[in-house]
């Protein structure tokens, strides 16, 4: 077991430092690149926080759909192939729900401010 503070605490500390102390000192194209760098660190922090749970539930869902075992990459490859050859489609029970949940979990990490994601998140909350 590694010592603390943990990875998300470290990446967040670096991002906060760059955002609060360095960003005001930088201008021009480097300011743009710094913003990209901060966004990257924020993304990594979100992924480290959310990935384990979303990967586990994604794996459970694909194993259910395909009735097979394997790594998440292998399972996604198999699922992609079955959609490509028409074995599975949107009429397959659970497929649309699976693709939606998986995509929502990706956007929560990649781009949580994306307007289409915000809209769909609101929709999910209303339905609950």
């Amino acid at each position, binding site marked *: 077991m590694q010592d603390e503070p943990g990875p998300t605490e470290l990446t967040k500390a670096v991002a906060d430092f760059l955002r609060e102390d360095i960003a005001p000192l930088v201008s021009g194209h480097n300011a743009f690149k710094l913003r990209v760098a901060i966004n990257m660190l924020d993304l990594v922090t979100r992924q480290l926080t959310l990935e384990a749970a979303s990967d586990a539930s994604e794996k459970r869902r694909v194993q259910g759909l395909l009735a097979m075992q394997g790594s998440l990459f292998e399972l996604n*490859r198999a699922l992609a192939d079955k959609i490509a050859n028409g074995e599975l489609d949107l009429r397959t029970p659970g497929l649309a729900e699976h693709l939606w949940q998986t995509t929502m979990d990706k956007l929560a990490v*990649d781009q949580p401010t994306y307007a289409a*994601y915000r809209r769909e998140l609101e929709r999910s909350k209303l339905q609950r």
Partner: protein
Amino acid sequence: MKVIEEQLTRSVAAWYPGATGVGGTLKLSGGASQETWSFEIMTRSGNVGAILRRAPEGYGAAPSRAAGLDAEAALMHLAHQAGLPSPRVLHVFDANDDLGPGFIMERVEGETIARKILRDAQFADARSMLARQLGRIAAGIHDLPRAKLPLLRQRTASEEIGELAREYGSLNWPKPVFELALRWLRDNDPGPPVQVTLVHGDFRLGNLIIGVDGVRAVLDWELAHLGDPMEDLGWICVNSWRFGELDKPVGGLGTREELFAGYEAAGRAVDAARVTFYEVMGTLRWGVMCGGMMQRFRMQPDHAMERAMIGRRASETEIDLLRLLAPRI
């Protein structure tokens, strides 16, 4: 003096009447296949704002989809002649210029940054009419006479689907949502167009110069080709170019009805089902392009962070595709 300024001074002296030199060179963008510079042509009667667009040194042939800089210049010239908003092309380089393939055009003042066009108060009047105006301009592009066009690639929808499938396959990036979209495209392939026309290929906010009075110039003809004119109307509706304005499908500016009305008022017919088909195809294309950025990020050290982060935007196209193909009720 910068190398580029020396080269431009020599070139401009040979073809611009009364040119005494150039100044104010400023690199606006440096893509992998093209770079763009702004500069002033100085004459005794004053300065003329100009834009240089050329293939940078050290890069080989343009990517297979690109029309080529000579074709771009020819198309902008044709558009300008036809009265469409387009910069005047001043000079196309030949071997004497020593500036590589490229051309020089007049600089058109205005805004290209989509978020400013969509949010700033000064563009409020322009915003209310842009969707319709874009329809009219698209119709003008599609009406440019075939006989005068430069040599351009031509692809049917089926060939485009095949190419997308190959590009996606080469990424070794299994994405069930992309497979779903490819399947949908194959099942809904509209077949050859009623009429093959010039297609701009990248007709969207970001490639348009906008003033308070509306569209001032259509830029970036790099992806121009021959094909189904409905492709341009579908591409401008792709959610990636709405910049958060979800309910205004035409570039975050207005409705499809306004776009179609402008197009039809210019005497051309709209096929809404084909437009939807090309919106789905365009969404997938941008998603696959994000994957291409991921691949280039791993292969080339330049622009590393930007490319890496564009790679992580593929999921935006996945949610857009699901909203199009498997909407939740």
